[in-house]
């Protein structure tokens, strides 16, 4: 009978829903976490692996120049305070975002660089996604290449990381999907032509072939939100930094790859 069949299906639907909720509450076990690098085609992997072929290296080299360039009313270069980045910046990107006591909240690497520009160099801070800021960030982050992502054990970060986690699991946009529904529950499947990665922020700033340029993690987050037909958060917005914090914690232990290449 039609109605009975409908009721049975509804009951089955409710059961399946309960199961799905149980499954989707599960985060990817640490032992199964893997960088988006693992999903790249052979040619893209080769491009990332070879510094002479990696288009992100142009930005790193530009960052190295900026590191040594005196600027601002203090006429100081980053190097005047921090010396050789190879030593002083090693491991820094692996533990960002970090808590900034004067602001009372976490700041990401771009924001940290901007704070140095504004407060130490008395220079004009760089705009988000500007060539200069991406270059300095890529140069600093590359000093951590190969280092395992190691979020600081700092209790002050906990509420912000938890806020990021909430955002990751929140359904949003006209398509009403949560980040977890693709990146925890369906990674390695195909969304039309694209393989869904686990969404680990291992290689930022990345050179993305689709962008034809280097770009920040927040640019990537904004892309995914736009895909869901959700209103993306502004660059530097607390929500984006909280999300970065959660994603870094989620990727703990994976090696930093900056500058990575992604399709």
């Amino acid at each position, binding site marked *: 009978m039609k109605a009975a069949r409908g009721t049975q299906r509804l009951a089955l639907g409710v059961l399946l829903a309960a199961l799905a909720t149980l499954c989707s509450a599960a985060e990817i076990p640490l032992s199964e976490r893997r960088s988006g690098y693992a999903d790249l085609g052979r040619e893209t992997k080769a491009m990332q692996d070879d510094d002479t072929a990696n288009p992100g290296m142009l930005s790193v080299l530009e960052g190295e120049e900026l590191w040594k360039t005196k600027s601002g009313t203090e006429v100081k270069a980053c190097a005047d305070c921090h010396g050789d980045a190879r030593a002083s910046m090693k491991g820094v990107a692996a533990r960002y975002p970090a808590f900034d006591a004067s602001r009372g909240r976490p700041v990401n690497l771009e924001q940290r660089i901007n704070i140095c520009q504004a407060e130490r160099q008395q220079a004009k801070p760089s705009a988000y996604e500007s060539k200069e800021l991406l270059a300095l960030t890529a140069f600093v982050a590359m000093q951590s290449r190969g280092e395992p992502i190691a979020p600081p054990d700092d209790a002050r970060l906990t509420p912000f990381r938890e806020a990021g986690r909430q955002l990751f699991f929140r359904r949003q946009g006209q*398509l009403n999907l949560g980040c977890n529904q693709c990146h925890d529950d369906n990674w390695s499947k195909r969304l039309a032509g694209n393989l869904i990665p686990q969404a680990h922020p291992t290689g930022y700033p990345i050179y993305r072939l689709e962008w034809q340029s280097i770009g920040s993690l927040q640019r990537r987050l904004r892309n995914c939100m736009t895909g869901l037909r959700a209103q993306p958060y502004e660059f530097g917005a607390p929500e984006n930094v909280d999300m970065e914090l959660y994603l870094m914690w989620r990727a703990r232990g994976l090696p930093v790859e900056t500058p990575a290449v992604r399709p």
Partner: protein
Amino acid sequence: MSLATVQPLATHAEDALHPYQVVGDAIPASLTGKPGDPARGRAIVANRQNTCLLCHSGPFPEERHQGNLSPSLQGAGARWTAAELRLRMVDASRLNPATIMPSYYQVEGLTRVAGAWRGKPILSAEQIEDVVSYLSTLRD
């Protein structure tokens, strides 16, 4: 038998969703009062803008990129009646609250919808009817 009439709200009168009645796991009546057009429905499903092929695959030899997050649309018309397909298009989450399949004819209960899409369903009533009539033709 569950019987519920849904009277969706919309911000502008001209965007108001057509009311519909859910009976069991189906919406028996056309949202527009008219049958849809299967040829137009096929074009809607095949058009990447409408998102179906992000998740589904189906009999679209001309489309190189199709998703594999969900069942193939092949045979959907044999598995479900038009009335059942209509509810699955309008609001699949009524049958499975955890589904990733978006509700194509719903404007409420959403979070942070971007300006261009706010207050509008993903597909119009006419488009839903076209898609339902196309899916009904997928019999094997």
